[in-house]
């Protein structure tokens, strides 16, 4: 009797682990749409995003024991994804790494520029923004240098908190905030450029 006990315990442990693994995989798969949405804007092509998401899930399923249940699985998956993206060397960079933004008035740039194009009196903000096509917004975002774009994508599109974005990118929260601020300004400048050329 005493000899069979460890075997039973071991069987039970393996069964429990199998159930935990299935649960983990199901939960991770439920998040795949959200993971893809972020991935798609971190890289420049759809193919690259698909590869990245697939590699992320391969790695996540291999290393599932490293995930602490009860913590943020979406952030954990995105952490894997951004690390893979960095490992891949972020090829096919569309944007230069430095963008000159000497005018501190950049924040008002889009607002003023678009506002000037519409009705003079009391322009409706929503209509101002409707002038931007989906493609022009996507292009303007893609042209933001990646360090800044990463935080915009995580916070504005992935709807991650500053703290989660900091953890995912392995940078301090203060850096998340300053990159967001600067990145959004660059994005608005790009949008203004798109708005006048379309």
């Amino acid at each position: 009797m005493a000899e069979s006990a460890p075997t039973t315990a071991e069987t039970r442990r393996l069964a429990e682990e199998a159930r935990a693994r299935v649960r983990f995989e199901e939960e991770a798969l439920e998040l795949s749409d959200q993971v893809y949405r972020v991935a798609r804007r971190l890289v420049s092509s759809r193919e690259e995003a698909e590869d990245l998401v697939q590699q992320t899930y391969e790695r996540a399923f291999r290393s599932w024991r490293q995930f602490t249940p009860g913590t943020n699985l979406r952030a954990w998956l995105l952490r894997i994804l951004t690390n893979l993206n960095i490992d891949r060397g972020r090829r096919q960079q569309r944007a230069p790494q430095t963008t000159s933004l000497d005018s501190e008035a950049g924040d008002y740039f889009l607002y003023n520029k678009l506002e000037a194009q519409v009705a003079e009196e009391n322009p409706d903000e929503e209509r101002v923004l409707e002038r931007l096509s989906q493609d022009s917004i996507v292009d303007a975002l893609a042209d933001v240098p990646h360090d800044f774009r990463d935080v915009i994508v995580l916070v504005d599109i992935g709807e991650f908190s500053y703290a989660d974005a900091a953890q995912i990118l392995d940078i301090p929260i203060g850096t998340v905030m300053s990159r967001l601020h600067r990145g959004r300004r660059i994005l608005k400048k790009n949008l203004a450029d798109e708005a006048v050329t379309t």
Partner: protein
Amino acid sequence: MIDWCEKCEEMMQPYLDGVLSDHEVAEAERHLDECRWCAKRYRFEERLRHYVRIAAAEPMPPELKAKLAALRTPLH
């Protein structure tokens, strides 16, 4: 003398990101109630974020979804 418009501008991004303290939110909203220029700028920024989020959303290709599902550990 505090320049509230300047302070409001500084608070705009953290306000829209929902990271201000209750006290700061109350402070910002008090000014927004009184200042049409800042209120308009806030609305513009809010709409802009909304538009970026909508424009950037691209559904995952079904083939990829199937590939990911196939990565699951087979049940014995």
